[in-house]
C-alpha cells in the first residue's frame, strides 16, 4: 500500500516512470477482470487502454491517499457498464452473453494472451448473467469484500451473496461438464 502511495505521489508530480510502474503492476489484473466481465478479449483490451488513458489524464484529480487499485477497478466497472448500456440501447435483442466466446478470438495484434484455464473459465463465465459475473469477478479476481461489491451493485449484501452462490454453482457445473466432455 505504501508503495502505491509513493507511486501516486511521483505520478502526480509528472514522473513517467511511476506511470510505467502503475501500468505494469495492474495491466494484467485489469485485463483479466475485464475479460471475465465482458467475455470479449478485444473489447477488454480497449476498456483497459481507455482506463489507463483516463488515469493519465486525471493525475491532478487523484488524491495522494487514493487507493489506486480500487480506483482502476471502479473505472473498469463503470466503463464496461457504460458500454453495455450503449450496446443494449442500440441492439435491444442482445442478451447478456457476448456474441463471441473468448476462445474463438485470435488476432495477430492481440495484446492479451490467455492460458488454457483462462480460456475455459472466461468462456464458462459468459453463461452467467452480467450481475453474477460481476460479483464473482470482483470477489475472486479483485478480492473485494461482499460489502463493497454490494455498494458497487447498489444491492443488499444478501442479494450479492446470493448472486455469488448461484453463480459459483452454475460455474462449477459448467466446468464439471467441460471436464467430462
Amino acid at each position, binding site marked *: 500500500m505504501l508503495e502505491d502511495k509513493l507511486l501516486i505521489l511521483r505520478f502526480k508530480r509528472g514522473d513517467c516512470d511511476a506511470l510505467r510502474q502503475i501500468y505494469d503492476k495492474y495491466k494484467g489484473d485489469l485485463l483479466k477482470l475485464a475479460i471475465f466481465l465482458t467475455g470479449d478479449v478485444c473489447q477488454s*483490451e480497449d476498456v483497459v487502454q481507455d482506463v489507463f488513458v483516463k488515469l*493519465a*489524464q486525471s493525475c491532478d484529480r487523484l*488524491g495522494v491517499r487514493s487507493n489506486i487499485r480500487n480506483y482502476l477497478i471502479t473505472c473498469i466497472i463503470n466503463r464496461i457498464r457504460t458500454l453495455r448500456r*450503449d450496446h443494449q440501447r442500440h441492439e435491444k435483442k442482445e442478451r447478456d452473453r457476448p456474441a463471441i466466446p473468448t476462445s474463438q478470438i485470435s488476432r495477430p495484434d492481440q495484446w492479451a494472451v490467455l492460458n488454457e484455464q483462462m480460456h475455459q473459465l472466461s468462456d464458462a463465465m459468459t453463461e452467467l448473467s452480467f450481475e453474477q459475473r460481476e460479483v464473482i469477478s470482483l470477489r475472486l479476481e479483485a478480492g473485494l469484500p461482499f460489502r463493497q461489491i454490494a455498494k458497487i451493485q447498489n444491492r443488499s449484501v444478501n442479494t450479492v451473496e446470493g448472486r455469488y452462490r448461484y453463480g459459483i454453482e452454475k460455474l462449477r457445473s459448467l466446468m464439471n461438464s467441460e471436464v467430462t466432455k
Partner: protein
Amino acid sequence: MNSADNMKRLFKSAVVRTRSAPDEAVFENVRKAYERNIEDKSTQPKPIFGRFIMRSPKTKPAAAAIILVLIGALILSLCHDGGSSVALADVLAKIEQITTYTYEISITRTRPSQSGTGTKSTGTALISRDHGMKMTTETIDPNGESTNQEIYVLPQKRTLVMIEPHKKSYQRYKLNDTMVESFAEQSSDPSSMIKKMLVCEYSSLGQSVIDGISVEGFQTTDPAYSENSAFGQADVKVWVDVKTRLPVRSETLVIREIDGEVRTHRVLDNFQWNVPVDAAEFEFEIPDDYTTRMGDITVPAYTEETAIKGFAVFADLAGKYPANLGGKTFFKELEALLAPTKDRKRNEKYAKLSDVTTPIAGLVAFYQTLIQGKKDPAYHGEFVTPEDADLVLLRWKVSDNEYRVIFGDRHAETVAAEALEELEKKLPNSESN
C-alpha cells in the same frame, strides 16, 4: 471440482499475459495522454481561461471552478454523449437560466447500531438567485422524536441563520466574501450536482417515466465525484425531463465507514421552476426567548492569515498539526481537541467553542479553495511539527513558477518552484530520504 477452494484455485491458475509489441504501443498511447496533460498544466501563458484561473489574485475559486466546468461541459457535450437524447451539459445550461425554484428533500440516514428505519429528514427548499435560500426540515430520529429546523442563507445580508424551534435556539453566521459571491453559482443543489457529474465519468440510465414525465437518467459512481470530500464515496443519479431538460428527481447514496456502515440516502424531487417569490419569504424572525450557543460567528475570509491562525490554534491545543485537513482522521483529531478539559488556562483562553472551531474551519475551507482552484496544494502536517522552521507545512502555487509556503513555525514565504523542490526533499516522507 467440488469445493469453493477449487474454484478459487482455478481463478488463480487462469492467467493473462501481454505481448510486448502491442504492450509498448498501448503504453505509448497512455504516456502521450499523460504528457499532454502535464504539458497542459504547466504551459503558461495559457488561453484566456487558464490565465484567469491561475493569475488573477481576485479570482474566486468558485468562479474558477465554474469556468473549468463550462469547458468540461463543452467538451463533453461534443464527444461524451453518444446515444443519449439529453445532453447533461444542456441541463446545466437550462438550470442556470432559472431564477427561482423549489424542491422537496428527503434524507434517510441509517447506522448499524440503529434499529428500524434510521433517522429521516424531510423538508422543502426555496431558492431565489436574488434573495437566497430558505429551507425548512423536520427530522424524526429512530425513537420517533421529531425536531424542526429552518435555515436561511441570505447573501445580500451576508447572513446564514439556523433556527431550531424545538430547542428555542438559533445560530447566526456572518458570511465572508467568497461565500457571498459564490452563492449564485453554487447554492443550487441540482446544478452543483450536475457540474460535478460533468467532470466525472458518468453513464446514462436510459429513458423511463417518473410521475407521468418522460425522463432520462444519469448516474455516476466515479470516485472523482467524492474526491477530497470528507463524506465518503457517492452514487449519484439524476433524472431529467426529456422535454424541458430540467431535473425531475435526484438520488444520492453515500456510504461511510464510521464504526460500521453509515448510509445516507438523499432524494430531491417535486421541483417547481421559476415560481413567483415574495421577498417577505426570506425574512426571518427570532423570538426573544430564543438563545444562541456560540453567539454570532463571523466566517473568516479564506486567506493565508486564516490558515495560519487555524494552524496556531490547533498546535496550541494539540501540540502538533492535524495529520490531514479533512477526512476521518481529521475529524477524530478535532473531536479530541473539543473534548471537555479541566485545564483552567485553556478554558479561559478558549472560552467559547467557536474560539476553536472558527479558525480551524477557516483553515480547512482555505485548503479546500486551493484544491478547487487547482493551485497544486500539498499539506505535510503528518511529518511537520510547530518547531520545524525549515520544513514545508503547506504550499500552493501562486504563479507560473512560484509557490507560497507556510513553514512548520508558521512563517510564510514565496519561493521559486526549484527552491520548493529542494525544500520538500527535506521532508521525512520525501523520496530522496
